[in-house]
């Protein structure tokens, strides 16, 4: 029954949160695996790939930070939940509390109600600063990352592997244990890319490039999706992230290279009209530099006006895609350039 399942999901989640939060505050390091194990061992259907069951250091860091902040916030929450009922009971009309209708100030209390939140914000802010720097999506997680270029399209994601020379649609194959650098752009409206068990969101925007670094430390299929509403197919715009061992990944690439289909500018143009992809597609090869060309296709035309790039662009698109891209044009339009 949904009810019982839901209950166990809650329990697992709460234990998971505790597992993430508690060691940072009090328990010795050794307790972490024990509590984490307890969380995973609880029966239930899991979290459909949520960050409550992290499968990599980035998502794990986000979960544990969630726990730390929650625990710290209890410092201001708990007193209210304790004090309010007492005050209501004691000072209700007819209660025992002394009626002091003109009492309006007390320096001690004043220092307390300003001081505690200030001190708390100092602690929270410090934690925030450290976690934000460590968890910066632009920070590479090690040398020699595997670069995957991601193009958000209407109701599907295109993944390009420049190192391997293969490409996929709605399937992100990754090796376990190797740092991954995802470079993202959009061929359409803004989207928000997430693989909850591995890392949080980053926007993909046309004409610009954003980055998401992550690392998977367990194998398996993890759901990823777009979270920014982009039309009728939004609800079903998800993809499978398949994390496999390094050897399996090599094997997967080799198999991919044996596929028939390749992706050139014309094939890309056929992907532009909004559509939901039911089965992932694997391309044995793609036109090198396609990612940069997609970004460049949104740069202002120096002559000839509007460059076709949208879903309605139809046959104009390939020409636009193969237009020469100058690197400074791209960088002017990336959020990275602002850093």
């Amino acid at each position, binding site marked *: 029954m949904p009810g019982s399942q839901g209950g166990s999901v809650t329990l697992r989640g709460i234990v998971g949160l505790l597992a993430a939060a508690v060691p940072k505050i009090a328990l010795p390091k050794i307790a972490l695996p024990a509590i984490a194990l307890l969380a995973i061992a609880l029966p239930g259907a899991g979290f459909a790939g949520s960050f409550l069951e992290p499968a990599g250091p980035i998502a794990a860091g986000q979960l544990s930070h969630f726990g730390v902040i929650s625990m710290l916030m209890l410092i201001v929450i708990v007193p209210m939940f304790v004090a309010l009922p007492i005050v209501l009971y004691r000072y209700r*009309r007819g209660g025992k509390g002394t*009626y002091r209708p003109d009492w309006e100030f007390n320096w001690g209390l004043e220092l307390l109600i300003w001081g505690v939140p200030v001190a708390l914000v100092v602690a929270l802010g410090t934690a925030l600063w450290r976690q934000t720097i460590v968890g910066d999506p632009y920070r590479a997680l090690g040398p020699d990352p595997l670069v995957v270029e991601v193009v958000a399209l209407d109701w599907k994601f295109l993944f390009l592997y420049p190192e391997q020379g293969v490409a996929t649609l709605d399937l992100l194959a990754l090796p376990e244990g190797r740092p991954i650098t995802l470079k993202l752009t959009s061929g359409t409206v803004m989207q928000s890319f997430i693989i909850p068990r591995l890392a*949080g969101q980053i926007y993909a925007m*046309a004409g610009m490039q954003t980055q998401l670094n992550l690392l998977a430390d367990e194998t398996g299929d993890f759901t990823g999706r777009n979270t920014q509403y982009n039309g009728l197919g939004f*609800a079903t715009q998800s993809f499978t992230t398949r994390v496999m061992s390094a050897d399996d990944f090599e094997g997967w690439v080799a198999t991919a290279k044996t596929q028939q289909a390749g992706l050139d500018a014309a094939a890309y143009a056929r992907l532009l009209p909004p559509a939901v992809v039911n089965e992932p597609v694997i391309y044995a090869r793609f036109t090198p530099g396609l990612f940069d060309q997609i970004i460049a296709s949104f740069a202002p035309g120096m002559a000839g006006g509007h460059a076709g790039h949208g879903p309605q662009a139809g046959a104009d698109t390939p020409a636009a895609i193969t237009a020469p891209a100058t690197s400074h044009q791209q960088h002017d339009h990336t959020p990275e350039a602002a850093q």
Partner: protein
Amino acid sequence: MNWELIFGQIKWTSFVFAGMIENPSLSEAIASGAGSIAVLGALATVILLTVKGWWVPLWRDWLTSVDHKKVGIMYIAIALVMFARAVIEAALMRAQQLSATDGGGFLSADHFGQLFSTHGTIMIFFVAMPFITGLMNYVMPLQIGARDVSFPLLNAISLMLTMAGAIVIMVSLVVGQFSTGGWSAYPPFTGIEFSPGEGVDYWIWAVSLGSIGSTLTGLNFAVTIYKKRCPGMTLFRMPLFTWTTLCTSILMIFAMAPLTAATVMLALDRYAGFHFFTNGDGGNMMNYANLFWLFGHPEVYILILPAFGVWSEVVATFSSKRIYGYTSLVYATMCIAVLSFAVWLHHFFTMGQSANVNAIFGIATMIIGVPTGVKVYDWLLTMVGGRIRFSTAMLYHINFLLTFILGGMTGVLLANPGVDFQVHNTLFLVAHFHNMIIPGVLFGMFAAVQFWFPKVFGFRLHEGLGRASFWCFAPGFLLAFFPLYWLGMMGATRRTYMWSNPDYLPWLALAMLGAVLILAGFALMVTQIVVSVRQRAQLAAPLGDPWDGRALEWSIPSPPPAWNFAVLPQVTSQDPFYEAKKAGTAYRSPASYEDIEVPRNTATAPLIGLFACAWAFGLVWHIWWLVIVSFVLIWAVVIARSFATDTEETVPAATVKAANEAFLAAARAAPGVTRDQEMTSANRGRAIPEALEGRSGTIASGAPVEALS
């Protein structure tokens, strides 16, 4: 005959009923049903007005009035009508999400997209904004001892522009589609390339009209508070609701402008081929996100600050005690107002800016939590040493303290970029902002209605039904939104019309139950108003002070006369009316009366509103003749008005004296009631101050409450 010249892009298929005829489905039937309700509702109103002969009074006494009190009432009437629509939309979306695991459901994806867009747009711009504006309109001038706002006509124009926006959004139920771009309408999705058609244009013009109205309101109220305070009303003697009104007005002045700029630029993109926010040709949607949230974040505080003001009034009155830490609360409010302009980026931590930028805005966001936390504990300390009465308004306040602080906790969580990366765009975020807006703003407004209703209409609201309504609303909110936190953590995205994860089901069912309770609460609230109107003789409190109030508004009759104060009051302390009651100086006859100038009614504002509505409709449908004609007419009305010199009429001193002396005599003659009799028909609005009852500790019996009827 060129029909397009006359009707622009309206076709017969634009009417909502065409969808039902051409492509019958449950989703279309619901759309047609909603359209029918809008049409029938309008028809029923027309018939009622005609049968009852109310057209003339409606025009003469209300629409053309520039009295801040009537303007305030009309604002709140708009808010309640629009609330009825948007809350039903919310329940529809809940039902859809519950029934749509693995496809299914009864709404089409497109219909669902329109629902979440209209729900958000209406709730923010046409429920929350008119509600707070109406309340500030009514209460603030009374609290500062003024006869009206500084610019009464401008005030009426603000109202009519807001009403025009609300009408435009109601018309979209019947003619054409609404946007599916959400209440924030992010381009490029809302650009002409991806959203052709009239939907986004409806959003643009409805919101633009509302935002211009709010800008004018902000200016008007700020000037009123600076210039129209009665003698002795120094800034630090102002009631806290007036303080929060001042802060909100300042925020409105500065925050509405970026929104108007953003909507106009989006319109230029769509109508004139500009490239502010397009994907290509130099456009950049990041600029829209910045402009929108430069408005959007202060907007959160525009809404919550007046509610904070309400809470301060309610908690002090129903604890029969001075507010704790008045100065502290004022500074905290100002801190919040200023800081609210420094945190907008936390709405898009995920846009790829550097970690340092994210961290700074995250910490700034947490810092706002400090003054907010201070306020919450100030309210708690206000109850300490008081004599707390658990009236409906007070129940809302207690519920607010407990739930708001939890929303604050999730807000601090969301202020962490690392957490936000995971739960941004999920139901966690949806739960968070509803957690702030419903127990904070909406229930604040409901509490304000319970609290000030007897002032406005001269009779109390039925207390038993009020409490019944509260006991549906409060648990309804918890059930409807706390499961959403969990769903969001499990990864359920917002704005999603179907799911593939069965784990969500039990939580969605709980949320649906909550939505049903909220609807029941609303039905009980409507019932409460109807029953109270019927029992208005028993509930009457014409002597003006049913709650043992503290500020000046309680010193005058209920409902107040058009001139508010027969003689402008002299103030020497905070809580002036309460102090006067304690000192026995309340209800004294003034030495002399003078003639009072009050502004004449004028058709200027309703005409401007009417033409603004036509102008917006013309723009939405590209009916260019209508656009030009109505635009010219708007300015013709403004110019014509500028020639009117006889805009005020004089109320003779004798009239004022007769009315006021009658009121004072009745008040003095009335026996006065203790708080024990507050909820009985003995309460005619003359209070014996709690502090004069001379009792400490126990009180004989609990206050009886009218039985449910």
